[in-house]
């Protein structure tokens, strides 16, 4: 019993640590665009993102329920054996995150979490312990479709914004006003982030509490203290992560115009919020990246750098199976060595966390290693300095030439 309590405490601590790193990493994603276009002062942006992440954690609990009452078939597992597996899965997720961070590979914290959890469950409890319908319809398919959806919507919105505000008489078009609007859209992105990312840790903790018999399986919503703890932790991580942004943010987004940023953020927020309401557990990084690429393509004369886009997408596709493999290895330790396996996993987790801490202190932040993934995805789109004329501009040029010709006759 005491061992079970100890494991529950360890899982909660590790899950909250994961939540903190998630907030730390994703501040740049939510706020890189408004800072790059000068819509918000970096310090204000970071504080706003932290507060709205906390508010977002209270808005919806559908994503949390997907994880606590969907992915794993609780009736197929032995509760005593499963608690160490959740622990192993979390270590797998954190290890994969650290590995990709060190190598500078594009990855997704959320998919690392699912991968770790699924891998550890399969190894420890068998293939039947996973509900593949839920995994496919609420994790894998949204992972593929959500960035495409966000990209398509951002493309349409950018076209719309430019079409409505375009002027043909070279007088001021008022597009500077989008910079003001970005304060609201980037706030919505931070809010949406709280409704999706904070929920994932809530789901893991709720699952742990149900397995440990602390919470009734019929109670689908997380306990209030769980919502509060996860909300505060992700908000704290978001605020602490701000220092990275203040130094280098949006390096790859120098070419983002306010109208484009406004459209990209609206698309990101709408896609994440609509998905959260239906319980789709998304990677907010991937959705924001899809929007940035889509809005870039919405500008005239833009083309895709397929090599960069391909590299980013391959990184995304690898996250789930790779973290599942790491989670599986951690679970093998538990399955083979029992209590010793848990101890080895715990020591490994401490080593990984300490290494992250030491490396983050030692590594100097430069444009190369602090650029957010969303900012990096912006480089997948090439925008020409002199965009081709619109149909109406071409017609105006033709009219002008014809008139000149008539005058000269």
């Amino acid at each position: 019993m005491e061992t079970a309590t100890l494991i529950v405490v360890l899982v909660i601590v590790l899950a909250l640590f994961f939540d903190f790193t998630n907030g730390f990493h994703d501040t740049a994603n939510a706020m890189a665009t408004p800072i790059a276009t000068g819509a918000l002062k970096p310090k204000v942006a970071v504080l706003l993102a932290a507060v709205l992440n906390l508010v977002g954690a209270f808005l919806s609990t559908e994503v949390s329920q997907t994880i606590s009452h969907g992915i794993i078939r609780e009736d197929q597992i032995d509760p005593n054996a499963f608690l160490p597996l959740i622990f192993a899965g979390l270590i797998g997720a954190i290890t994969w995150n650290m590995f990709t961070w060190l190598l500078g590979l594009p990855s997704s914290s959320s998919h690392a979490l699912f991968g770790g959890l699924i891998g550890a469950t399969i190894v420890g409890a068998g293939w039947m312990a996973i509900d593949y319908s839920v995994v496919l319809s609420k994790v894998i398919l949204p992972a593929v479709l959500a960035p495409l959806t966000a990209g398509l919507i951002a493309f349409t919105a950018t076209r719309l914004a430019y079409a409505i505000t375009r002027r043909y008489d070279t007088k001021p078009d008022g597009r500077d006003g989008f910079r003001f609007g970005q304060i609201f859209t980037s706030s919505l992105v931070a809010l949406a982030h709280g409704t999706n990312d904070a929920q994932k840790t809530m789901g893991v903790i709720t699952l742990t509490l149900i397995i440990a018999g602390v919470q009734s399986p019929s109670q689908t919503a997380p306990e209030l203290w769980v919502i509060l703890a996860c909300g505060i932790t992700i908000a704290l991580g978001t605020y602490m992560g701000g220092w990275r942004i203040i130094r280098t943010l949006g390096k790859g987004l120098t070419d983002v115009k306010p109208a484009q940023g406004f459209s990209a953020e609206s698309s990101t927020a709408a896609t994440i919020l609509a998905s959260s309401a239906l319980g789709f557990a998304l990677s907010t990084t991937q959705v924001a990246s899809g929007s940035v690429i889509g809005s870039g393509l919405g500008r005239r004369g833009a083309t895709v750098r397929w090599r960069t886009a391909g590299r980013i997408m391959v990184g995304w596709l690898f996250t789930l199976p790779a973290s599942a493999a790491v989670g599986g290895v951690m679970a093998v330790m538990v399955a083979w060595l029992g209590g010793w396996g848990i101890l080895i996993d715990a020591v490994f987790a401490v080593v990984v966390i300490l290494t992250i801490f030491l490396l983050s202190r030692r590594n100097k932040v430069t444009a190369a290693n602090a650029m957010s993934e969303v900012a990096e995805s912006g480089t997948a789109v090439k925008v020409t300095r002199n965009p081709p004329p619109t149909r109406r501009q071409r017609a105006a040029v033709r009219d002008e030439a014809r008139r000149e010709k008539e005058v000269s006759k």
Partner: protein
Amino acid sequence: MSITIDWLAFVQVFVAAMLATVLVVGFYSLGLRLLVRAGRVPVVGPAEFTDAITVITPKDAQRAAKAAAKAARKSPLTPAQRQIAAIGAYISFGLCGLAVLGGLLLIVFNH
């Protein structure tokens, strides 16, 4: 073991997100357009200049403000027409805000 996928849910997400984004971006853009028509061109300089910003410099902002004032003086519209355009602009911004609020309330009361 059969795998069932609710494809309709994906369509719902796409339609809801597209509708919300088009409403928000459309109304906000329309508001800006009408504001320009009313002779009140918004000139919003960056809050802080980081090395990432190459979009506008303070000098550019001043120049833009001057151009906006000049364009407003030369507007062919009557004061009443300008007033109507300004009211239309604020209604558009209001509708944009309502679209956001409506979406959020839908999420809060739907779960």
